[in-house]
């Protein structure tokens, strides 16, 4: 029993009694692994190279890949990510991975396909996010999901050559892509008075590009179909050209407003892979940066949601608060968004006693100002009329779509990596998760309000208990053919990074799963029964990343 606990304890924290106790409890409750073992017996072999040791990974035969999904779904697992890797340089074919999550437990199920038959059974019958993940796998890696009802490309556009699979090792990423004629088939609605409204990719405001196609009768939306991929920069492929150290700059620029969470997830995945233990002070500073990023983005979003209901005064008031907040980031940490402040091994910036005082007095000021604005938002009946009961994502739908982050919490799902997959100091600071069930625009705004309040309290706790010491440890080279995993609660939701080392210890694969990859589905589902003018409001209440999704 004790060796099992030892193998469950996250690698850097084996000396921590509290984590041992947590894992003892987890052991009793680790349903997903048990479920897989009892359904598969000998057919599921544990993958030894997966780090940290708290994440179990199993290899199953290809023909039973969907069966694993079925068994885990019965156990109420959610699909967190699904991806493929080109393991031909490691002497294997293509690896297809599915990461399942149930509360605190992550389980990775892998199967492999030979290079001459790159197919695998689709998981779409059991898990809705598989629709997007598998289209992406098919488009970018050329590994097809058998039984997937939608064979249109995703992220890859219809004018790419059919056989352009950028993530394959055989693909030369430096050559430009020719354009070929192609057509994207849209879901259409037929009937009298049905209009098809295309929006984008260049949108009316200062915002990322993406395409939305509405089928509408008058103002009522019958269907919304998204087409993304406009901001695809080949990030996952580009990772493979960098060293582990250089790549942290790329991770920071995957999604500019989530730079801290992405850097953190990347760094944690690399630390898990290489067995590096960052010093405690670095962990506390990382949490500080993460919470500051959360507050800054929520302030901006609350203002933007009010602007979309024509309540512009709160836009400018919130933007003023956000500006002051970003200036403190610049003053203390050298960058308004704290880009490149988290690297594998620790952080690149420290904080002194003056800095702590600055932040604490800033929080006192922010709290007062923030509460005043929240009351104005809450009391205004015109705003209430627009935001309540608009863009409702029902709880059952949210669960079916496996959404994460504040979108999930606004629709009744109890999900937060800071509680379910914590790193110190989150394991000792009580994080309260605000959960609402209405799933409307107001719920998504209100979850943000509560999170800002809670983040301010968490920052105070972090600064009160900040340990002394170094801010970075050195990172060694990884062993060949090992994998690292990390999940971090960014401000949008769970950011997952999975890294794999090649034969020379280089980056063989860096899989990025931004929360937007699942949450975009939520927008399509919440819009039913709403009117076209409410679309910008719903979109803003979700505020998902295009760049983090398209990679």
């Amino acid at each position, binding site marked *: 029993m004790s060796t099992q606990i030892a193998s469950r304890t996250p690698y850097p924290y084996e000396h921590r009694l509290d984590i041992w106790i947590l894992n003892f409890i987890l052991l009793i409750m680790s349903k997903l692994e048990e479920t897989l073992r009892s359904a598969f017996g000998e057919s599921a072999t544990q993958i030894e190279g997966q780090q940290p040791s708290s994440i179990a990974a199993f290899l199953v035969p290809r023909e039973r890949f969907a069966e694993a999904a079925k068994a885990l779904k019965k156990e109420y697992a959610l699909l967190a990510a699904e991806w493929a890797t080109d393991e031909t340089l490691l002497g294997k074919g293509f690896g297809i991975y599915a990461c399942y999550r149930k509360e605190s437990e992550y389980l990775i199920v892998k199967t492999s396909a030979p290079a001459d038959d790159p197919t695998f059974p689709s998981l779409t019958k059991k898990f809705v996010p598989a629709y997007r993940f598998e289209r992406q796998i098919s488009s970018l890696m050329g590994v097809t999901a058998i039984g997937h009802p939608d064979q249109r490309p995703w992220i890859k556009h219809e004018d790419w050559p059919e056989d352009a699979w950028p993530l394959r090792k055989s693909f030369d990423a430096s050559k430009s892509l020719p354009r070929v004629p192609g057509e994207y088939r849209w879901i259409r609605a037929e009937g009298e008075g049905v209009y098809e409204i295309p929006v984008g*990719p260049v949108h009316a405001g*200062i915002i*990322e590009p993406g395409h939305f196609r509405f089928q509408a009768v008058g103002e009522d939306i019958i269907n919304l179909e998204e087409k993304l991929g*406009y901001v695809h920069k*080949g990030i996952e492929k580009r990772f493979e050209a960098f060293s582990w150290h250089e790549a942290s700059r*790329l991770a920071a620029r995957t999604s500019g407003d989530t730079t801290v969470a992405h850097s953190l997830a990347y760094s944690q995945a690399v630390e898990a892979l290489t067995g590096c233990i960052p010093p405690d002070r670095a962990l506390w500073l990382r949490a500080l940066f993460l919470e500051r990023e959360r507050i800054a983005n929520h302030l901006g979003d609350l203002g933007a949601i009010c602007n979309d209901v024509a309540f512009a*005064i709160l836009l400018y008031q919130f933007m003023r608060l956000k500006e002051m907040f970003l200036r403190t980031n610049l003053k203390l940490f050298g960058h308004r968004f704290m880009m490149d402040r988290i690297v594998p091994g620790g952080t690149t910036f420290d904080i002194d006693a003056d800095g702590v005082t600055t932040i604490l007095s800033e929080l006192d000021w922010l709290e007062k100002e923030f509460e005043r604005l929240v009351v104005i938002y809450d009391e205004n009946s015109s705003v209430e009329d627009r935001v309540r009961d608009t863009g409702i994502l029902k709880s059952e739908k949210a669960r079916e779509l496996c959404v994460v982050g504040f979108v999930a919490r606004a629709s009744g799902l109890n999900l937060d990596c800071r509680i379910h997959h914590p790193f110190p100091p989150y394991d000792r600071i009580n994080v309260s998760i605000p959960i609402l069930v209405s799933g409307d625009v107001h719920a998504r705004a209100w979850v943000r309000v509560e999170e800002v309040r809670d983040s301010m309290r968490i920052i105070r706790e972090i600064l009160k208990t900040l340990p002394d010491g170094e801010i970075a440890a050195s990172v060694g080279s990884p062993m060949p053919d090992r994998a690292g995993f990390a999940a971090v609660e960014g401000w949008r939701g769970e950011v997952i990074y999975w890294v794999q080392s090649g034969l020379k210890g280089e980056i063989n694969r860096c899989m990025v799963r931004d929360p937007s990859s699942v949450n975009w589905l939520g927008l399509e589902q919440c819009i039913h029964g709403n009117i076209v003018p409410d679309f910008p409001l719903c979109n803003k209440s979700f505020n998902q990343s295009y*760049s983090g999704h398209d990679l």
Partner: protein
Amino acid sequence: MIRILGQIFRTGIVTEPLPPVTDPEIEKIGVELGKIIKRHFRRSLAIRQVDAGSCNACELEIHAINNPIYNCERFGIHFTASPRFADMLLVTGPVSHNMEIALRRTYNATPPPKLVVAVGDCACTGGIFGESYASLGGIEKVIPVDARIPGCPPTPTALLQGILKAVGR
């Protein structure tokens, strides 16, 4: 309503004066161009922002120049929804392959006289995304550029200074 009015009076005016340009990085291409621009765009500037594949950090800073502290509208700068009304295209991102056509069409839809300003390291040189199958390596590869504002992302001050310098003020 009283609460709203109270908040307005309590906040007051927070707009800050723009510091003079000391940063030599902000580069304007062409002295002759400057004279033409000064003549045409003296009073106001309508900007159409185009994201050609950026990570979104530049967009956040462009949002910031609209906030009450930087207040770009006091200079007559405002953002417009359609390229047809625009005098200037503010372009971010290295130009992803999938945005190349949209960027070209937006540029063609903007009636002359027009200016193109590349915002951020990615728009200037491709940044960390460089040149690849998916990233074209800077907007110069697609449309002519009149001014560059480097940075990752450039601060709102640098943005304002760069835009004003591009129009000759």
